[in-house]
Every structure is written in structure tokens, then in C-alpha cells.
């Protein structure tokens, strides 16, 4: 039982930079408890000013090497809205396919390399590789699939090439699609095994009711476009995103914070699950049941379980999308035409692995960007993480500092603030050889 | 098609594989000895499998390779008259491959292809006074010729060796040079561009040595080997002494990737330095717009 607790976890998470958790409890009451973000500011919005619209998606994909396809897609949608572009059905299908590639890549990395070791109480992936080499190899197989899927559609995962305003500059061949289909079918066994594995994990029961925000669509579990939905019962067009995000500066972090109807809200897999689980593919629904996920779920740790559910959903959706594309046949298409007009504005939104992402541009008649705004998911989650931490810490005070630290780290990781810094991925190979 | 004069002989015939042979396949040779010659140069004695005779003539080169690093043309420094079961290379640490070669020790292995190219036509030099003007590393290929002449001294007239280096520390083969200077049937003169405290000999570029020699233009052939800029000035001196372009031989350095006249890098006009060269007469070179 600790009356005075001081936890300082350095470089725990990453929000295009680094993060620390600071907890300071004195005489049983919380003095400080926050996620500190020490991001190197990059000023993307300022950089975009004066640049031709066609560069925007390639510039903004460089915001994050993990969510590159997500940023590029949101950016393209913003430009396309501003430039009154109508996308072809084929473009939409191909964009979804690439998006799934990234969703899978990110989720697989996150649940296998971070979450699994935490829960299996093996500390990191190193012992996991020794105790469960099959698990690690499976993760590598699944990740390779996602990378190859991205490559087939957009050239590469980190900084996609073939997506452009109005469409694509390159198209997968029938053989490419057939090959990826075959591999997706083979992957199903790995996906099942993933559900099986995560079904056995003891998810912490910590619970805090909050608002969940995600993109919603009338008839699908979609990630691109749609409406902004909230579990507090609101549905707004994407263009009204500023009403939702209400960005504020927080004194202890260089990332901006957001709040909608409450002090904070949560975005990401759990938010999506809570808002639109009924549109999941049947196998994903079964997986949710197996994992004990039930909407509405207010347990932030279950965000990772929702990610597993999305893995199942995405693989099934990839199969569906490829079948549709094979049936229609992929045709070479020039990008859809654009219309320039003075001061045209457009907002693009995507639900990337970590939650909703907004890009808004104002594009002049000369095709140059005049104003730009980008809002990243982790920025939206920060306020919610802070409040979770504050609610969680008092319940942990009877535990050792090491245990507290571990639980807090796990909480922050569950939000998947950005995978790379807290992954113990490489260690796999150290041991595996 | 190609001039009949160039040398197509390669003693190190590539091994046959499924009935095919490859001109790009090196034979694996062993380094018998390594000596440090200067800060930049080392001398290697190389032995082909079974001590097979390389069978080169002075002025020819071999392609030396370290699989995993690369391959480079290197002149044979030893005289065919001296050693038979090994041959000698003098290699300057000039870049990527040669830097790694400089780490090799006795007993290590290298790949060898060749010998390639047309060397100096020693038969043509017989009975003549031979003047050799070598600059820098050029003394290595020249050495092959010099030793050959010394070993068959009676077949030739005078032997005049002019050798220039940038500074005393870059002078190669000092022992041999001392030996040549001792002999009364060899006239050897050495110069350095820039002297230091230890240097008592000639100072100045190699062309300055020509002041000190007299030659009979009717009886002399001249061979010059050195860096590209040297040739123009040496040729001027030789012409000034009455030599015709046909009496002046020079060895050309070019980039080479194959050594067998395919890769195109060593072309001088329409001719391949790796096959029809590297030794050409000045008369031949005059016909190349690209040569000097």
C-alpha cells in the first residue's frame, strides 16, 4: 500500500514523437497524473500553404510512417471535395483495399508485438518468441501479407505511390489480385488462431464511461468518408468536424487536445466497434463474442480486442473486395477531372487504425493550397487517456510501483498511441535465431 | 575484323562447366608473399593452381578479383624471364577493391583472369637501344620489361631508365633502382617532383631528365608508362630527340570491366585498350582523336 507514488515512464509512447507518463500521488491524492507529449513540432499545416494540391497527399503521408496510407487517403478526400471530384467505383474499391492493408499491418503489429507480451505476462516479445515461436512466426506471416497487399495496390506501405487526386496512377493486374486473394484465403487460418489466442487473455476490467466517436456509414463497417457518429447520439457531416474536435492546447503537451460533448472522447477500434458493430462481417461478430466484447463496452483495455475483431473483419472484407474487383475487371482509368474555383474548401476524413483523422484544405484557383488543417487521432485521444489515468490510479494504490507502472503502460498502449516506440518487435529476431 | 596483332592467348583457361566455359570466370590463385613497397603500394607474389606458368609478356595485365568485392585490371610486374610458377603484381591502394586487397596476407586467395592485352613487342626491340620513361606506378609494368631486357642483356643495345615520382616517399623499387644504377650496362636516372631533406638526387618533372641523356635516334625505341598527363610531355621530348612516332610506345590506362573487349569502358576511339592495347605506338595513338 503506497501513500506516495511517483511514476515517470519515459519515452513510453509515440505521437509523432515521444511521450512520458507522469504520475505523482502524495498522501493518497493525485497531484499530477498525465500523459506528457514531447513531440518535435513539424508544422505540416504551415508547410502545405502555397504548395500545389497534387503534392498534398504525398507530403502528408510523411506525417507518420505507420499511418501513411490513412493520411494520404484523408488528404486526397479533402482535395477531392475542394476540387469537386467524383470518384469512380473502381477508385473507391481500390482505396478501400489499400486502406485494409494498412489497417491490418498496424493492428497486427500492435496486438502481437505489444499487447500479447503484456498480457501473457512475458514482459516483451523476447520470451514470447522462445515460449511461443509459432505465435511470432504467425505474426510475421500476417504482417507480410498486409505489406504485400499495400505494395500490389499502391506500390509500398510506407508512403504510398499510386494514389492521386481523382484516382490511381497504377493498377494491379488480374494476376496480382488473384495472388493476393489466394494468400488472403490462406491467411484465414492465421486469423482464426489469432482470435483463439486473444480469447484466452485476461482483459483488465477497468471501466470508465466516456463518449466514443467514429465514422459511420449506413450500410457498412467503413473507414473512409461517411458521417461523424458519437455514442452520445450525434451524427454530423464530416465538414462539421471542428464542432467535434474543439482543439485546445494543453499546458503539458505539444499535441493538441480535443473534446466534444464531454471533457474528452475516445476514437479508434473500440469507438468504431461501439458505434457500428452490427455492420461487421459474420466471422468478425463471432470473434467479438469469443473475445467477450459487447457493445457498449467502456473498458479501454478492450480496444486491443476490438482491433483483433477488425483484423477478422478486414481479411474477410479484402476477400470480398478482391472478388468484386475480379468480377468487374480492373480497367486503366485516368484520374477523374478536377474543377478549380477561388477559395474552395474541402474536408477529408478517415478512420485510421488509431481513430478518426481529418484533413481540411482551402485551395485557390491556381491550384495552390491556401489553408490547411490536420487533426490526428492520438491528439483526440489524449484528453481521454488523461481522464482514464486519473480514474485508474486510485484503484491501483495498493499495488507495488512496478505493478502500477505496468498497468499504466498497458493502458496507454491499449490506445495504441502509435505503435512503433513501444513495440518490442525486433527482440523477436534476437531470440528467434 | 579486329586487328590480328592483339594477343588472344590466355593460359589461365577458364574451367569448363557442363561443357560451357566462361571468359568471366577467374581461376583461384594463392598469394605466396606480400611486401610493403611504400605507403600506397604493396607487391604480391601470386601462384596459379599447380604453379602453372602465367605465360604473359611484359605490358600485359591480369584481372584480379575478390568475389564479393570486385575486380580490377593490374599489370604484371614480374618478368617472364624470372619466375615461372608465380608472378608478381604491384598494387596501389586507390579505391574500393584495392583497399581490400591491401588487407590480404600470404596464403590468401584471389581470382585471376588473363593475361590480357597486347604487351610490348619485345622482339621488335631486339638489337635496339631501349629507353624507358616511367612515371609513378608506371614503373610496375615497366619493371617487367626492364627485367626481361636485363636477363637477355646481350640481345639489346643500351638500356636507359628514366623514372620520376612525385616525392621521395613515393619512389618504388629503390633496391632494384640502386642495382640498376650500379650496373654499367644500365643507365638509370631518377627524379622527384618535390624533394625533401633526405633527397640528394634530381628534382623536377620527369622530362627534366632528358637533359641528361643523349640518344641515337636511328637505333632507339622508347617506352613510356605513367599517368595520362605525363605522355604529352614525354612524347614532346622524345620527338625533340628525333624519334619518330613509330619508335615510341606507350601504355594506356582506361577503366576496364571485362578485359575481353566487350564491356566498352576501355575504348579509345574504336579500339579496346584491354585487347589491342594497353600498349600502342605513338603513331597508332595519333590516329585516335581521343587518345591523349
Amino acid at each position: 500500500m503506497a501513500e506516495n507514488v511517483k511514476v515517470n515512464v519515459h519515452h513510453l509512447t509515440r505521437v509523432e514523437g515521444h511521450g512520458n507518463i507522469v504520475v505523482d500521488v502524495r498522501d493518497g491524492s493525485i497531484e499530477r497524473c498525465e500523459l506528457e507529449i514531447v513531440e518535435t513540432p513539424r508544422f505540416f499545416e504551415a508547410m502545405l500553404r502555397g504548395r500545389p494540391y497534387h503534392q498534398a497527399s504525398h507530403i502528408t503521408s510523411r506525417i507518420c510512417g505507420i499511418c501513411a496510407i490513412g493520411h494520404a487517403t484523408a488528404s486526397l478526400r479533402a482535395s477531392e471535395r475542394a476540387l469537386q471530384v467524383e470518384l469512380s467505383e473502381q477508385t473507391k474499391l481500390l482505396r478501400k483495399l489499400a486502406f485494409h492493408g494498412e489497417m491490418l499491418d498496424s493492428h497486427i503489429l500492435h496486438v502481437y508485438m505489444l499487447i500479447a507480451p503484456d498480457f501473457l505476462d512475458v514482459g516483451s516479445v523476447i520470451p514470447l518468441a522462445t515460449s511461443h515461436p509459432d505465435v511470432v512466426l504467425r505474426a510475421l506471416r500476417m504482417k507480410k501479407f498486409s505489406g504485400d497487399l499495400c505494395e500490389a495496390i499502391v506500390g509500398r506501405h510506407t508512403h504510398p505511390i499510386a494514389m492521386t487526386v481523382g484516382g490511381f496512377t497504377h493498377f494491379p493486374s488480374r494476376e496480382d489480385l488473384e495472388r493476393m486473394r489466394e494468400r488472403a484465403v490462406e491467411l484465414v487460418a492465421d486469423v482464426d488462431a489469432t482470435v483463439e489466442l486473444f480469447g484466452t487473455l485476461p482483459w483488465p476490467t477497468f471501466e470508465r464511461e466516456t463518449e466514443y466517436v467514429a465514422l459511420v456509414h449506413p450500410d457498412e463497417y467503413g473507414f473512409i468518408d461517411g458521417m461523424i457518429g458519437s455514442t452520445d447520439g450525434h451524427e454530423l457531416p464530416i465538414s462539421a468536424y471542428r464542432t467535434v474536435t474543439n482543439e485546445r492546447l494543453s499546458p503539458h503537451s505539444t499535441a493538441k487536445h480535443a473534446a466534444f460533448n464531454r471533457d474528452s472522447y475516445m476514437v479508434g477500434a473500440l469507438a468504431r466497434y461501439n458505434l457500428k458493430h452490427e455492420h461487421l462481417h459474420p466471422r468478425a461478430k463471432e470473434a467479438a463474442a469469443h473475445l467477450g466484447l459487447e457493445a457498449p463496452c467502456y473498458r479501454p483495455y478492450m480496444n486491443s480486442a476490438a482491433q483483433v475483431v477488425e483484423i477478422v473483419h478486414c481479411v474477410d472484407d479484402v476477400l470480398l473486395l478482391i472478388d468484386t474487383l475480379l468480377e468487374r475487371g480492373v480497367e486503366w482509368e485516368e484520374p477523374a477531372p478536377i474543377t478549380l474555383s477561388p477559395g474552395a474548401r474541402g474536408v477529408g476524413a478517415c478512420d485510421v487504425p488509431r481513430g478518426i483523422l481529418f484533413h481540411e484544405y482551402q485551395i485557390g484557383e491556381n491550384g495552390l493550397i491556401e489553408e490547411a488543417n490536420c487533426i490526428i487521432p492520438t491528439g483526440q485521444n489524449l484528453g481521454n487517456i488523461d481522464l482514464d489515468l486519473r480514474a485508474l490510479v486510485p484503484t491501483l494504490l495498493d499495488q507495488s510501483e512496478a505493478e502500477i507502472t505496468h498497468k499504466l503502460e498497458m493502458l496507454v498502449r491499449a490506445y495504441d498511441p502509435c505503435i512503433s516506440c513501444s513495440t518490442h518487435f525486433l527482440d523477436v529476431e534476437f531470440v528467434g535465431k | 575484323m579486329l586487328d590480328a596483332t592483339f594477343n588472344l592467348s590466355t593460359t589461365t583457361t577458364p574451367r569448363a562447366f557442363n561443357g560451357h566455359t566462361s571468359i568471366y570466370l577467374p581461376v583461384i590463385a594463392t598469394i605466396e608473399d606480400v611486401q610493403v613497397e611504400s605507403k600506397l603500394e604493396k607487391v604480391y607474389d601470386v601462384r596459379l593452381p599447380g604453379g602453372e606458368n602465367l605465360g604473359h609478356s611484359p605490358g600485359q595485365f591480369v584481372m584480379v578479383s575478390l568475389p564479393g568485392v570486385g575486380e580490377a585490371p593490374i599489370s604484371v610486374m614480374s618478368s617472364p624471364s624470372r619466375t615461372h610458377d608465380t608472378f608478381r603484381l604491384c598494387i596501389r591502394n586507390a579505391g574500393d577493391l584495392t583497399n581490400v586487397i591491401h588487407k590480404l596476407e600470404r596464403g590468401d586467395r584471389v581470382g585471376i583472369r588473363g593475361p590480357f592485352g597486347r604487351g610490348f613487342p619485345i622482339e621488335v626491340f631486339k638489337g635496339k637501344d631501349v629507353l624507358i620513361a616511367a612515371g609513378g606506378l608506371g614503373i610496375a609494368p615497366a619493371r617487367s620489361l626492364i627485367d626481361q631486357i636485363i636477363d637477355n642483356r646481350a640481345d639489346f643495345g643500351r638500356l636507359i631508365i628514366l623514372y620520376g615520382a612525385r616525392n621521395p616517399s613515393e619512389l618504388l623499387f629503390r633496391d632494384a633502382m640502386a642495382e640498376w644504377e650500379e650496373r654499367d650496362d644500365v643507365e638509370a636516372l631518377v627524379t622527384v617532383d618535390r624533394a625533401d631533406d633526405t633527397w640528394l638526387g634530381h628534382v623536377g618533372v620527369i622530362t627534366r631528365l632528358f637533359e641528361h641523356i643523349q640518344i641515337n635516334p636511328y637505333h632507339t625505341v622508347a617506352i613510356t608508362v605513367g599517368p595520362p598527363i605525363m605522355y604529352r610531355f614525354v612524347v614532346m621530348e622524345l620527338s625533340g630527340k628525333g624519334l619518330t612516332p613509330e619508335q615510341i610506345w606507350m601504355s594506356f590506362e582506361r577503366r576496364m570491366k571485362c578485359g575481353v573487349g566487350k564491356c566498352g569502358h576501355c575504348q579509345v576511339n574504336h579500339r579496346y585498350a584491354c585487347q589491342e592495347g594497353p600498349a600502342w605506338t605513338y603513331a597508332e595513338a595519333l590516329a585516335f582523336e581521343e587518345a591523349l
Partner: protein
Amino acid sequence: MSNKPKIAFFDFTSCEGCQLTVIDALQTHLGLLDLVEIVQFREAMTEKGEDYQIAFVEGSCTRKSDEDRLRQIRNQADVVVALGACAHLGGINSMKNRWTIENVQTYVYGQNGKEAYESYPARPISAVVQVDAVIPGCPIDRFEFLRIVQQMLQGRKPKLPDYPLCVECKLAENACLNTLGKPCLGPITRAGCDAICPTYGDGCEGCRGWHPEANFEHMREILRGHGLSEEDIDARFTMFNHYQMEHMGEDSPLKPEAVLSRNEALPSSDFAAPQEAD
């Protein structure tokens, strides 16, 4: 543990995509771990060793406080390698150099931005410390990364192609985008990525930097031929290479205003700035 060379990865201002590419490289070339010992790699491990011979540095230097850390790395490592366009060229980050720092700070973070967010014009790390080798690209090419590591392990000086991208593009038998009316910077960009962008139908953007004989004047002519505006052409020349163009001096193919515009020219705007902290 062994006498394998110890290597470490560091990140400055970047998207960390190059480090992710290193992870991708490990997925297909696990054997790399038999050759080197990774002692620091925040992307992938929590352990942190301070004893390393080769440091791979990702990201640009964008603030004064980065400099010390860079110098520390330089002091420790025998070999410092710039990993990716941000570290190599200043990359994407240097686009902000067109505006004054105060302007970008307030545009993105409002009036508080000036104090809260330290920043200065983005620079390649070679502007701060001596760099021994470069792995270009945004992101890096994983095969080039592996090749360069191999060369360093052999004690060789890593070598980059110093010819233009068109060479690789032709070997891939792509129809030339510039002849199809689509702008491509291949003729002035250093090869080494196997012309991946043109292969996927999109013109090269110069992320690997210029090759030594880049002919800007005629590249500009070609782009004009596609009907591009001067601003558009400048934007292409400066997407990854803003810093390079700023520092070319007399030889620069750009007018000075294309690389440095004045703060005053911009109307103030709160488009991106958040509300004040409460």
C-alpha cells in the same frame, strides 16, 4: 555478447518510416542479425545500449536542442549514417523553411506557439555533424539499406549510384512519364530506388536528392513543356530538396522568393491554430 559490430538507431524530426523500413528489411533478411548487434532501436525494443560503433540517424535537425544529442551520437559512433531523406537532405521538413519560424509556429499552434514550440529551419544532419554515409530516400529502399550495411561491414566506403533515375526506369522498361505529359524529376534525381515511383505511374519527386550532373535548366524546360506554372515547378524542386535549393547560391535554378518568402506576404489566419489553453 560478441564481436559483432554494434549498431544503434536514433530518430530526430521524421515520420519514422525509414526505421519501419528497416523492420521490413529484417522480416525478409533476418540474417542481418547474425552480422550486427542492435543495441538501440526505439522502434522495436526497450533496451538501450550506449556502446555502439555505427549510428543510423533518422530525421532532420529542427531545433537547437537537437544539436547536442547529435554531437553526442557523433562522439560515440565510429560511423554515422544519415538514414533517409530527412537526415540526408532536410527532406519534407525543410519545406517549412520557406516561412519564418514565428509564422509557422503561430499558424499551427496560435499565439502560444512561439514560446511553447522550439524550432528553427530544418537542416540535414550533415549541417551539424560530419556524416560518413548516406542512405537516401523517403522512405529508404530496404535493399539499398542492406547493401550499404554489408559494404560497411566489409570496411568499404558505401557507394551510391551517381547517375539519374532514368537509368533504372529504362531498365524496368517503363514508358517515360515525361513523354506521356506527366511531370517526372527522374532526369535530375539520383538513382537507387529502382524507379519505384515511375513504375507505379507517378513522377519522381526527388526524394533521393539530385545527382551530381543534374541539369536543372533543361529539367525546367521539360516541365514547362507540360504546361506547369513556375510555382508548380518550384514546388517540385523543393518538396524534398528545399534545403538544398536554399543553399545552392548562385547555381540555384530557383528565384530567391521561391525558397524564402516573407512573413508579411501571408495574411494571418487561425485556420489550423487551436483555441487558447484553458
